[in-house]
């Protein structure tokens, strides 16, 4: 490897680290704010799974579309959502992405192809399939990506989506974040198959990576995306990862063994990425500086979200339809 290549590799690794740290810092802050009662409703954190959202996003172009799920903060931030409007939305404020109507489970930014987090398990797959159909018919060269958990494998619409995408050779990347848990139950007790065999059943190209190794995820995602963009049809990318937090914040995870949780902590993707950076010559102060910068950005976003105005009820009635109706209720 030449010096330039090494520099560029280190530069890329730093960018991946920076993106993961941003997701981590945002979610750790959300967890604390939720515990303090500052965030209403439910939030589902993806702590420990940042390498998946960041690694896949690194392989995408700005206008590729992305359908997410209930554990979607990482997907949204990695896709490039503005932090202020993201936090404003999760706080339920007027100037949030969704004007306070969606919250954590429905954050979207259609201007950059982020088609929404989703409160319904498996729903994002069919949306991504349709988005991919639009890309194909419009001939734009864009692709669609959907993130789903292993729990979604038990949903019927997932199978309909895989079948249709493969049948129509659609440009869609199915990213399975296989964290081993379907809400409060081990997926092994819910699924008769696994992502690889399932993809094979639909004759779909499938890749399987260590989802806590951001470099491996990014490399696999780039391969898959290149193939999809070349018109070879969909691909399923299984990323084996670990869920660190509960299904939602406030879930004490009494159903999990201590050893399982300890293993999740040991395989932390940020710790691993930091070690790689140090091993390839990045000095600790460089990493510390990135961490400090990100902390400042999150501080600013949280301050903006706290200061934001709540939406007025009158604002809720205007957007049920694209043009306010003249008739009826």
């Amino acid at each position, binding site marked *: 490897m030449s010096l330039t290549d090494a520099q560029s590799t280190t530069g890329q690794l730093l960018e991946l680290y920076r993106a993961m740290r941003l997701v981590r810092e945002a979610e750790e802050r959300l967890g604390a704010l939720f515990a303090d009662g500052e965030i209403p409703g439910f939030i589902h954190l993806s702590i420990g799974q940042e390498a998946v959202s960041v690694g896949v996003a690194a392989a995408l172009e700005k206008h590729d579309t992305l359908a997410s799920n209930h554990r979607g903060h990482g997907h949204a931030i990695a896709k490039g959502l503005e932090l202020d409007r993201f936090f404003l939305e999760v706080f339920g404020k007027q100037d949030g992405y*969704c004007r306070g109507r969606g919250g954590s489970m429905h954050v979207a930014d259609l201007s950059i192809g982020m088609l929404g987090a989703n409160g319904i398990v498996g729903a994002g*797959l*069919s949306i991504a399939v*349709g988005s991919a159909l639009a890309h194909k018919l*419009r001939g734009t060269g864009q692709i669609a990506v959907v993130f789903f958990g292993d729990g979604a494998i038990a949903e019927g619409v997932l199978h*309909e989506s895989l*079948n249709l995408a493969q049948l129509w050779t659609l440009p869609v990347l199915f990213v399975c974040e296989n964290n081993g848990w379907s809400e409060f139950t081990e997926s092994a007790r819910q699924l008769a198959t696994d992502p690889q065999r399932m993809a094979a059943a639909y004759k779909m190209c499938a890749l399987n990576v260590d989802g806590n190794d951001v470099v491996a995820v990014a490399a696999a995602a780039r391969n898959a995306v290149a193939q999809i963009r070349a018109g070879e049809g969909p691909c399923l990318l299984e990323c084996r990862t670990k869920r660190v937090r509960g299904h939602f914040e406030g879930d004490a995870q009494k159903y999990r063994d201590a050893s399982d949780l300890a293993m999740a902590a040991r395989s932390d993707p940020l710790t691993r990425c930091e070690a790689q950076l140090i091993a390839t010559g990045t000095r600790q102060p460089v990493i510390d500086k990135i961490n400090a910068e990100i902390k400042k950005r999150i501080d600013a976003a949280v301050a903006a979200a706290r200061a934001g105005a709540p939406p007025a009820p009158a604002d809720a009635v205007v957007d049920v339809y694209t043009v306010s109706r003249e008739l009826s209720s």
Partner: protein
Amino acid sequence: MSEVRFGQAINRALSDAMAADPSVILLGEDVARPGGPFGVTRGLLEKFGPERVRDTPISEAVLAGAAVGAAMTGLRPIVEIMFMDFVTLAMDALVNQAAKAHFMFGAQGSVPMVVRMPHGGGINAGPQHSQCLEAWLAHVPGLKVVCPATVADAYGLTRTAIADDDPVIVIEHKALYAKKGELSESPAATPLGRACIARRGQDATIVTYGAMVAVALTAADELAHSGVQTEVIDLRSLQPWDDSCVLGSLAKTHRLIVCHEAVEAFGVGAEIAARMADAGFDELDGPIVRVGAPFVPPPFAKTLEDWYRPDAAKIVAAVNKTLS
């Protein structure tokens, strides 16, 4: 003017919309090569090609969900659900996704999609191929629901639905597909949310829609023999519905009957009756009477189905009840 069948009018609307806008596509089970289970989409594959007119697997859930994703990505998809009974399999995409996206994402974008589906009985198709489930869909904020009764509105409402930026459900009564009517050479779009008065009268108002409009007109003719002149309102749109038209008629007749083929309990008629009992309270000189199917699934055997579906005699009885 030329005489065409109801199904052909829908076909013409689909064809005209697809010719006018390349982003309009058609998805459904057997809509392309077979031309649709009721022949409504016949010839569209030949006109617009296999990219835009697509036979799909028997997968209602992904069909509706894919329409949402396609609509959010610049297309205007039209999905056909073969029988309205099968909409159960597509409900997540319609109720949780399509209906909510515009509101839930803070009006960032719209979901311009159309879902066509035939409802109703009369062909002995049995409990899972004959239902009228429109009240479910009209109950969901974010969906629009239309149900044409005439050839002109079959064309006009279909065009309006496709041009609309919100998700619109077009409900077609399967017994109407073969009915003939006049369609102009350059037919007009039918405005959404506007009823029309199918027959004028001053003694009582019958509000109805879809295939029951013709049944109500038959009942009105019978009543006219005994000197009762009923006004028949064809709602055309169920969500939004034209309450001012109904209220205007009620102010003239002071008697109201609401009629549909769907089960009477918790139906569209219940909403109309409740609204008029409130907004039209001062105008009412008699009880608001509903005519709908009994609270049983649509049965198969001819004797049972004939008993089940509202007919002119039941409407006549309802009018006489509120007049007595």
